[in-house]
């Protein structure tokens, strides 16, 4: 059998080759960043006075509290007519807020899409700013603001959910519009279509299906938010939650929380089913 060639004699030259896993300066920067992040976390734990040693004890206490004070949940309370009415209100608040928000988000998505925005210099940046603004403010803050201006009730809740939906759906719509085939848009532009015609004929037919999926998703998330905006006075189930927490009615609180969880899970399943139907019907 012929002798297997030794690697070092293959080339026949005597050049010394090297490789190291550590690359200067890139590896240094990477490890530096990692170290900085870890230090930040360690400092944060210290800064926030997180009692690491007491953690396990706390979870024991949580189990205690759950078993004794929150169980059994007061189910009678939640099948009461008043609370059932609150559930209906929550659903209505959610879908009205999502509906108005989505309608406005369609236009916002159009204006905030770089490829088809009617005016890239003025309308586009403003639309992007509005979408970011609506998105960045938490729905609870919107709710508090509207309650302050308009008082308690469902109207501030609907408005808060509208603002939330505009931000949520607006960004998703804009991303969808930015990924269309521009050929169809070019055709409408070439024949002298106005901006609105370009949108209705060139953009919308392409994104209609995706928009429907996003709309269903938005409704689902809006419902989730609707269950808690009542906490700050905007009506619906959240209001009952707040009252019972304030009155330390723990079993009723447990029942309300349970009802919220059940309803949101149901809405999640319904929306997931609807979205899969929509994407199959493409």
């Amino acid at each position, binding site marked *: 059998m012929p002798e297997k060639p030794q690697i070092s004699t293959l080339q026949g030259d005597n050049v010394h080759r090297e490789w190291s896993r550590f690359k200067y300066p890139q590896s240094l920067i990477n490890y530096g960043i990692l170290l900085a992040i870890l230090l*930040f*976390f360690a400092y*944060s*734990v210290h*800064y*926030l*006075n*997180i*009692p690491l040693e007491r953690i396990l004890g*706390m*979870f024991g*206490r*949580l189990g205690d*509290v759950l078993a004794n004070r929150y169980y059994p949940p007061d189910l009678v309370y939640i099948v009461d007519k008043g609370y059932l009415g609150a559930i209906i*209100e929550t659903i*209505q*608040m959610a*879908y*009205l807020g999502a*509906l108005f928000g989505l309608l406005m988000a369609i236009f916002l998505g159009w204006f905030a899409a770089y490829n088809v925005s009617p005016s890239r210099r003025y309308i586009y940046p403003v639309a992007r700013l509005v979408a970011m*603004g609506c998105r*960045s*403010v*938490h729905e*609870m*803050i919107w709710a*508090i*603001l509207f309650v*302050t*201006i*308009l*008082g*308690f*009730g*469902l*109207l501030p809740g*609907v408005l808060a959910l509208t603002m939330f939906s505009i931000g949520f759906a607006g960004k998703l719509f804009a991303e969808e519009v930015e990924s269309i085939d521009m050929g169809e848009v070019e055709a409408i532009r070439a024949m002298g279509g106005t901006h609105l015609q370009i949108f209705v004929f060139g953009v919308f037919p392409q994104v209609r299906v995706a928009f429907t999926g996003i709309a269903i998703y938005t409704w689902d998330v809006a419902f*989730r*938010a609707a*269950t*808690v905006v009542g*906490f*700050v006075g905007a*009506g619906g189930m959240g209001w009952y939650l707040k009252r019972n*927490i304030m009155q330390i009615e723990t079993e009723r609180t447990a029942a309300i*929380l349970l009802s*919220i*969880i059940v309803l*949101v*899970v149901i809405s*999640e399943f319904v929306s997931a089913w609807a979205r899969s139907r929509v994407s199959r019907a493409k």
Partner: protein
Amino acid sequence: MQDQTSPLTLDDIVRLRRKKQRTHFGFYLILIGLVLWSVQATVIDDTDWERIGSLTDVGESVAHFIGIDFGLIPSLLGPTIETFMIACIGTLLGLVICIPAIWFGALNVTPYKPVTYPIARIAMTLSRSIHEIVWALIFVSAVGLGAFAGILAIAARSLGFIAKMSAEAIENIDHKPVEAIRAMGGNNLQVMLYAILPQVLPVILGIVIFEWEINIRRSSVLGLVGAGGLGLVFFRQMNTFNYPGVTTVILAILGLILIGEVVSHYARKAMI
């Protein structure tokens, strides 16, 4: 089988078009009617219109918010940092507790499908269905007021999203590297380290950064129920009717979110 031997005439086509348009129009009309009725039944009836007053009254209310309370700014620094930290540690903790959920929740690596997979999916659904405020309430009653409850709430809320997306990423891996490592005699751990993890880690990192950005937004309101951060300052400014102060806090929150977006943008670029 043909029930028409002659092609449609112009009149036929026009008639069909008009009919279709009228049906659509009628449908939309009914829909709008339902919505209007809904609005009437809830918003219009339920609202105390007298208290709101006229449009100018509303305008005045809004005008109260215009302005910045500069005196408040120094005392905002602490809570702002706190909010930021809650988001960071909360997201990290969420990732850590996610690991078993991801393992159980990916169809191709879950140890005992009929049992572990449903457990994971239920955990993910619960985590995502419960609003962060509700999580915060739960943890505040368990571990007391303060940032710790906030961190736990963020972690519990993030678990669902991170686990679901990461499990999907694992389910969608390319099997060719797995095949290659097995073919050269690698064991399960080596397959995980050399074939699965390199594909999946960048995706998971992207998911974590995405969720981290959203968590900054969530952390800002947890203080409303006592879980630390700017939420408490917001609450206090509201209660003392210091509306410019409220605006200032909101600006601080927006600033934090902006930082999150910038960091996330550069992190994404670095990953590609």
